[in-house]
């Protein structure tokens, strides 16, 4: 393998892996936000029953 091939492989592999990590992190957080929102809705009524703001 030449230095040129190594340079291209390393550069684009790192960029590809970083892109994958970004997509995975975004997906995970979107799911987490979707999970947290209903939980928040479920808790709020019980809190308001006590008259707390």
């Amino acid at each position, binding site marked *: 393998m030449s*230095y040129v091939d190594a340079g*291209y492989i390393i550069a684009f592999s790192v960029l590809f892996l970083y892109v994958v990590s970004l997509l995975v*992190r975004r997906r995970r957080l979107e799911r987490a936000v979707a999970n947290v929102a209903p939980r928040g809705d479920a808790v709020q009524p019980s809190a308001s029953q006590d008259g707390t703001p």
Partner: protein
Amino acid sequence: MKPVVLRSIGVAAIVTTAATIWLGLWVTPPDKVQGDLVRLVYIHPPIAWCALYLAFGLAALSSLLYLWRRTRSMFWDRLAASAVEVGVVFNALTLVTGSIWGRPTWGVWWTWDARLTSTALLLVLFLGYMALRRVPAEPEVRAKRCAVAALFAFVDVPIVHFSVVWWQTLHQGATVLNANLSPTIHGSMAWTLLLGFVAITLAFIWMVAVRYRIEVLRDEIGEEELEVSLAERRAESGTVEAGFASAEATPTMALQPRPEPAGHPGPTVVS
């Protein structure tokens, strides 16, 4: 950024990157002096351009706009954080691709040359910025602290740029952005390099946009979790307060001595 626009930028980045690889590896001729090693030049300067000027420039500008009271908004803080993370990846790749080019050209993987050293220092400084973001603090305090750190780290960018002018270095001077603004590169090589700049810049924009979305989601989940835990805490304290309130409603009963059973002799006093 709208999903359609983001997707279009992503597709354009993939297409132009594929074209750069094809032109760079198979179509363009080898250089008269450097031979095939010139092919690394189609990716190394564009990656460095994104790291130094786009990413860290954007981070410094966003930090400045955050620190200025009239434009202060968490948008700038998130944008700076996103640009720095992407910039650190590009900065590391700048050093790696430069090192791979330097080994056959200069005979060493690394040398304490002014350009190389200042670029490595830049990486360390912005890694420090990322570490600072992880220090627990109020969002506003963290944002202000990180904005100052980004501006401090950005001072190294002009040093990196002018290092080849100020000191005698192994690293050659600018080929495209030179003092005369006349690129010393010819024909298909120039077009391939230009395409490389376009491709890597598009990829950079896409990455920063996605990274920004991650930052927004992270803040959102933080706020929502905080609200949920606060609501839970309020619900708990409400139950406890209700318990206290019922206890306080009958204080005399609670404090009254237990009635003694009939026929009980009563307490015996021992003298």
